[in-house]
Every structure is written in structure tokens, then in C-alpha cells.
């Protein structure tokens, strides 16, 4: 495949219409799973960068409250008007950026990259299929995602600005904030939910129906298993959020009271003109019924990628393949019955809290099994430390920190102290940023040569890795301390209002040393942004100047995705595929090579 999947191909539109598909059919309205995967990949990387940019601006406001943002401050004022008057980020704008940072990172960045991009590109190749089961639905899925993304971007520029009630959009707050930002947010979400629904149906049908002969369930690469479980989570957890979004839309547009209780005082303390009788808790239940499984949507594909790369670079079979698969199924099932551990502070009752506390502790067992199996896989391997492997290796302790710091949040008693503090921020960012995103980076470096026929530069890859690892930890490690000391999240002044400097001797006031960490964290965040430059340049320059691969299987891997031509043509395989063995037959004694591809007859 040509590496240019984006906009830079105007010449090929009209010519060669008879022999080859034109530019539009080949790159924009393609039904080829690999093209769609790359479309998803590039779009979601752009959204990741955009979502990250939002937080870099917010970090200025946190570190230096109410000072004009250098360089881009007046640009913001030009684009967004009074919300950024004098180049200073107003609290409203801070809230909007915060809400959109979460929304964009989760729904437009990480999930499309982890699930749709990698899943689309890799899954049909790994199971030996010619394409997805429903190629046209696959195309529509990407288009719905793109439309949803555009709607989210447009919402910044409508009067009143984008949604401000956080990515969780808790009602009544979300309903009562003036302006139509929330309405547009819901509209965008409906498109994104439709997109992921179509994707999920397609993935499950593909994995069940289109496995090559001999590809039994226990011969599936672990990555395919993770995508399979992820697809089920998306299929079943997203619709309740859609229902909730419809009800919130009704509250906004038709003035119903699904989430608005009787006697609700609106902004300014005046009783709202609503019929009442609604339940704010209902929104939280429906939201977290998606919201928590969504966490596993974020992490499972990354685990799958890490698993492939670990096996490949330790030149050993994955330790405990079956226990991995069963743990994965366990995580998938349990993820549906832990949601209310996000709601301990709502007063939903101790009995319900106890139930969800118990299930939350239980779900950590299979998660630990998976991580332990990965660690044991390393034991005694002759490890190749290339860039994908470095990212995959770093995933293990980073996800470990993220996971273990979740335990105090899963317990009712300790969560009461930690709830809504920077500790929570640090916890889930360890899971998603140096966890999932490192896994995804590993995947990009790993499958890049299959998609383009060229390797990414190793040196710059390593620079990217080491700098990212250092700055990620410099950002999130201090946040644990800030959170445990009681610094709350979502404060537009970085906690200055609660500082001891402002109110000496205040009980629970924030000390100077805590407040000062805001600045060092922000510096690390901006440095993390700079550390992505080697990656961005590497990603684009390597398409044209990277070292050409000399074989279709440059990593000497066993799975079917490496037994195709490079890049794989439409239809993927040049010969009929039959599978004879499990996915990780590395260093099998008595074999001439240290890897035996799945399609090699015994």
C-alpha cells in the first residue's frame, strides 16, 4: 500500500480509472480493512495530539493561574473570543477544555486507535481472512467516527463553547449549563456510539466466521482474543450510554426531567422550570455502566499488542496461554458488574457499595494473572531490545502502577478520602497513558513495516521511548502526592483558592510545596509534548526514507499477519491459508529455525 492515506494525492484521481481504483475509492471510500485501519490510525493519532494539546494549555492555567498563555494566548482569544480574553484561559474555557480533553482522548483517540485501527489492520490478517465480514459496514463505521469527530471539533466554536461538565457529563450540571455545547456533545456521541457498534458487530462476526481452516479458538493469537472480548464489551456496554444520552438530550431539548429532581434549584438558586421527579443517580448508573467497561476497552487491546511483541522478542512461547484467555474472558464478564465503584460518594447505600467493592476486588485477580503471565514470559528469554519491545516492556510496570493504585480507590473507605483528587487522575492516567498508549506505540513500531514495507528509525524510536518514559513519570508520579494531600481535580486555578498561602492555618489547606509541584508537572507535560516530535517526524519520514524490509517477516514472527506479502494486497493472502499449530511456536526444540509460522505444515 502507498503510505499516503491522507490528503496528499490529488494527481491520481482521474487517471488509471479502469485498471486501478481511483484515489477516492482507494483511500477515502475504501472497503479494504487495511486501508480503513490506517484511516482510523492516522485520524485517531491526530485526535490524540489535539486532545493532548488541550491539556498542555490547561497545564499553563494550573501552574500559572490567570496569567496570559504565552505564544498561543492571543490566538485563542482570536478564535474563541471572550472565553480567552487577554490570552487568559477563563474558568469556562478551562472546563470546556477539560471535558473535551477526556472525551477526545477516550472516544476519539485511544479507543479508535486501539480497537478500530489495530483491530482492522491486524485481526483479519492474523486469522487468515480475506477481509472483514462486512466491508461496507466497516467503511460506514469509519465515516460515522469521522463525522462524530468533526461535530466534537465544531462544538468549540458555537456560542457558549463546547461541553463543560467533564467527559462524564453528570446531570443536572450538564443539563443546566447555559449554551448548547452539551447538546452538540450528545449529538457527536451518538455518531461515535454508532461507529463503535458497527465496528463491534463486524469484529465479532469476522472472528467467529472468517477464521482460516485449522484456526481453532485455542490457536488464535492473544491479540485476536483481546479484540474479540473488547468488541463484546463495546457491543453491550455502549447502548446504555446511548439510552442515557437520548434521555439527556430530551432533558436539554424537550425539557423533560429524567435526571432533574423535584425542587431543583437552577443556576442562581432559582427553582428550575422543570416537572421534576427525575434522578441524578440514574445518569451516573447508566454512564458508568459504559464508563467502567470502557476502561477495559482501553486496556485490553494494548495487552494484546504487548503479548504479541513479548512473545516475538523473547523468542519464547507466551507463558500460560490458556490462563491468559480465560482470565481475559473473566475480565470481560466482570467488567460489567463493577461500575458503581465510581459512585461510592453518591450515598447509594452501604449494601450496594459492599457489593461493588467485592466485585472490584475480584476483577483485579484475572488482571494480575494476565500481567504475571507476561512477566513470567520474560524469564529466561533472550530478549531483543528493539523499540517495540522497549515500549512493550515499559507497559508492564506502568500498567502495574496504574492497576495497583486502583485498589485503594476500589475500597469504599479509602475512596472517600481519595475520590475526585489528583490521586484518581494519576491512577487512571498510569493505566491509559504510559500503559495503554505505550502499548499502542509499541504496536505502531511493530506493524509499521507490514503496512508500509519500511522500518521506522530505531535510534529516534529509542529517543522517543526514553524521553516519553521519563516525562510520563515526572508528570503523574507527583500527582499521587498531591491527591493524597487532598488536592481536588477540576480546579481552574490549580488549587490556589485552597492554599495555605491564601488562608493561613486553614485545616486541610494546600501547602506551598504541593502547589509548586503544579509548575514542575506542567514543565514535564510540555516536555512530553516535545518528546513526541521525534515520533511524528519518524512516522512520516520513514514512509519514504525508512530502511526497506528485506523479507515479508522482518521480526521473524509466527502469526499469519507476517505470512502475507508486504504490504498485503487487497484480499491479503496469495495462497490458500491453512493453520497447523498454535500462535507462539518460538524456539521449538528440533526445528531448524527459532520460529515456526502457524501455516507451516508439520
Amino acid at each position: 500500500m502507498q503510505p499516503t492515506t491522507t490528503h496528499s494525492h490529488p494527481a491520481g484521481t482521474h487517471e488509471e480509472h479502469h485498471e486501478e481504483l481511483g484515489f477516492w475509492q482507494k483511500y477515502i471510500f475504501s472497503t479494504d480493512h487495511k486501508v480503513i485501519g490506517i484511516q482510523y490510525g492516522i485520524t485517531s493519532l491526530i485526535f490524540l495530539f489535539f486532545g493532548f494539546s488541550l491539556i498542555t494549555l490547561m497545564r499553563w492555567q494550573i501552574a500559572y493561574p490567570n496569567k496570559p498563555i504565552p505564544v498561543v494566548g492571543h490566538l485563542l482569544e482570536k478564535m474563541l473570543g471572550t472565553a480567552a480574553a487577554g490570552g487568559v484561559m477563563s474558568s469556562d474555557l478551562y472546563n470546556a477544555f477539560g471535558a473535551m480533553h477526556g472525551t477526545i482522548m477516550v472516544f476519539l483517540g485511544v479507543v479508535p486507535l486501539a480497537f478500530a485501527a489495530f483491530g482492522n489492520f491486524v485481526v483479519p490478517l492474523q486469522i487468515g481472512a480475506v477481509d472483514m465480514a462486512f466491508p461496507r459496514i466497516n467503511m460506514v463505521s469509519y465515516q460515522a467516527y469521522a463525522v462524530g469527530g468533526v461535530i466534537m471539533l465544531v462544538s468549540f466554536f458555537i456560542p457558549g463553547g463546547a461541553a463543560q461538565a467533564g467527559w462524564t457529563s453528570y446531570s443536572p450540571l450538564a443539563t443546566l449549563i447555559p449554551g448548547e455545547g452539551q447538546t452538540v456533545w450528545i449529538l457527536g456521541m451518538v455518531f461515535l456510539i454508532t461507529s463503535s457498534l458497527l465496528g463491534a458487530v463486524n469484529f465479532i462476526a469476522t472472528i467467529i466466521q472468517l477464521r482460516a481452516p485449522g484456526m481453532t479458538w485455542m490457536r488464535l493469537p492473544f491479540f485476536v482474543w483481546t479484540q474479540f472480548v473488547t468488541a463484546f464489551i463495546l457491543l453491550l456496554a455502549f447502548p446504555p450510554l446511548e439510552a442515557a444520552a437520548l434521555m439527556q438530550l430530551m432533558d436539554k431539548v424537550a425539557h423533560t426531567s429524567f435526571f432533574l429532581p423535584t425542587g431543583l434549584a437552577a443556576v442562581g438558586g432559582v427553582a428550575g422550570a422543570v416537572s421534576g421527579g427525575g434522578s441524578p443517580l440514574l445518569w451516573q448508573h447508566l454512564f458508568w455502566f459504559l464508563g467502567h467497561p470502557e476502561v477495559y476497552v482501553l486496556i485490553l487491546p494494548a495487552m494484546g499488542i504487548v503479548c504479541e511483541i513479548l512473545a516475538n522478542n523473547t523468542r519464547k512461547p507466551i507463558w500460560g496461554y490458556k490462563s491468559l484467555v480465560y482470565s481475559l474472558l473473566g475480565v470481560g464478564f466482570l467488567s460489567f458488574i463493577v461500575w458503581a465503584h465510581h459512585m461510592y460518594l453518591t450515598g447509594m447505600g452501604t449494601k450496594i457499595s459492599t457489593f461493588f467493592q467485592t466485585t472490584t476486588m475480584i476483577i483485579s485477580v484475572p488482571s494480575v494473572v494476565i500481567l504475571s503471565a507476561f512477566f513470567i514470559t520474560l524469564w529466561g528469554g533472550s530478549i531483543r531490545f528493539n523499540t517495540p519491545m522497549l515500549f512493550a516492556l515499559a507497559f508492564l510496570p506502568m500498567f502495574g502502577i496504574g492497576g495497583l493504585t486502583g485498589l485503594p480507590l476500589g475500597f469504599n473507605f479509602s475512596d472517600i478520602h481519595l475520590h475526585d483528587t489528583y490521586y484518581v487522575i494519576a491512577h487512571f492516567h498510569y493505566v491509559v497513558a504510559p500503559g495503554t498508549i505505550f502499548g499502542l506505540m509499541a504496536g505502531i513500531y511493530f506493524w509499521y513495516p507490514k503496512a508500509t514495507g519500511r522500518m521506522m528509525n530505531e535510534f529516534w524510536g529509542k529517543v522517543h521511548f526514553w524521553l516519553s518514559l521519563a516525562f510520563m513519570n515526572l508528570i503523574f508520579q507527583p500527582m499521587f502526592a498531591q491527591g493524597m494531600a487532598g488536592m481536588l481535580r477540576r480546579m481552574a486555578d490549580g488549587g490556589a483558592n485552597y492554599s495555605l498561602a491564601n488562608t493561613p492555618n486553614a485545616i486541610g489547606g494546600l501547602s506551598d510545596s504541593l502547589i509548586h509541584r503544579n509548575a514542575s508537572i506542567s514543565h514535564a507535560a510540555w516536555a512530553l509534548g516535545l518528546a513526541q516530535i521525534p515520533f511524528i517526524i519518524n512516522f512520516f519520514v520513514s514512509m519514504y526514507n525508512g530502511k526497506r524490509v528485506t523479507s515479508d517477516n522482518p521480526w521473524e514472527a509466527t502469526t499469519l499477519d507476517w505470512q502475507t506479502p508486504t504490504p498485503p494486497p487487497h484480499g491479503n493472502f496469495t495462497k490458500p491459508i491453512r493453520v497447523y499449530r498454535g500462535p507462539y511456536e518460538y524456539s521449538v526444540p528440533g526445528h531448524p529455525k527459532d520460529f515456526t509460522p502457524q501455516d507451516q505444515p508439520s
Partner: protein
Amino acid sequence: MDIPYVVQPRQDTGLYNAKLGIWLFLASEVMLFGALFSSYILLRVGAAPGAWPHGLLNIPIGTVNTLVLITSSITVVMAWASLKMNQFGRFKVFQGFTLLCALMFVGIKSYEYHDKFTHYEVILTDGTVVDGHLIERTKEHVVIHPAAKHGASNAADKSHGDAHAEVKIPVAQIKKIENYGPWHNTYLAIYFTLTALHALHVLGGALVIGYLWGPGSKMWKTDPERFTNRIEVSGLFWHFVDLVWIFLFPVLYLL
């Protein structure tokens, strides 16, 4: 490049791709409507004692609509069976009936919606409540035709009959006037949300079935097996839409 199992079922699963696809899609639909039904339960359980309204809907009309949908469920199966027996003409007839039923259902539903949107509750400045259908609304006055509540079994209510005369209310005496739209109370909110979402599904289903009945039926000549599969898949969706109504009817009309 041909994708396998588009028409013929895969041996170990016994399904062709689209059939598996529609079952998965229906699973997500179950979660969508399941969430709304759960919300209904939570809102009703959480309502203040006596606050949840009863008998706002017309049960005979609801029953007729239920029968209409059940009939369409039968004809949609007969249409598919006709294709299996290679009787294209009978398919056209049966599926035509299905479409007719769909239109009838939506028609009756719109009548019910109209009835609610013209039904007003007027609270006067002296505290009395006038409840009934709006006859006329001008700048000076409002004319309401008070009506017994639908479904009220009280004999006294029925005996009123035409005794209700139209009431003319000067605007100055009105404290609040509001029709029975979704904003009126939480019951109507969930009623409109659920039935409107269901009606959208009916329309969507009718659109697909209509396409396969009309222009899409050309495929019968070129690829009859695949066409029959399409009818089966659209039929599965149609059954789901009917099934949702079978739950909606008792929950919203009877309980």
C-alpha cells in the same frame, strides 16, 4: 476476492455472516431498550407516593396496535417461507401486508401522539384545574373540552358522557397551561422517549422491508438464495421490533 459464508452457512457455526451480524446487533438493541426499561423502573420506584399517573393512555387503541404488530409478525414469516417454497408472488402479497401493518401502526401511534399534544392541563389563578382537549386558543381566552380520563373504570366517570360542556377560560385567570407532552411529567417523558425510539425502529424496519419488497427484490432473479437470506435477516429485526412493543404495551398502558 470473495468473502466466504456470505450465502452458505459456515459448518461449525451453522450461520451465514449476516445472520450472525443481525443477532449481534439485536443483542446491542436489547441493551439499548433494556437501559430505558431499567430507567423506567428506577423512575417509577423513585416517584413520590401517588405521583405516578395511571390510565393516561387509551387501552383499546393500544390493543389494536398490538394486534396490528402481531399480525405483521406472522406475515413477515409467511413471506420468508414463501420464498423458501419458491413462491415469489405469495412473498410479494405477504410482505405487502407487513408493510401495510407497519404503516397502520405508525398511523395509530401518530393519532395517539396528537391526542396527547392537544390534551391540556390548565391551572387557574384560584387553584382549580381544568383538564381536557384544547378547542380554541386566542389571545383573550382558551376553550377546553374537559374529558373523562382514558381507561378510567369508574362508572360515575363514564356516565358523564356528553354532560361535559366546553369551558371558556379568560387568559387573565390562567396561572399555568401545559399540554401532555414529554415535559409534563416523568411518566410522559419515558412514554414518549420509549415509544418514539420504538417508532423509529418500526420506520427503519419498514424502510428496509419496503426496499427489499420493491427495487431490492430484483435480486430474486440473480441470486435467490442470498435474497431469501436478506428477507430472513430483515424479518429477524422485525420480530425484535414487535417484541419490544409486546413489552412496551403492558408497561406503559396497563401497569
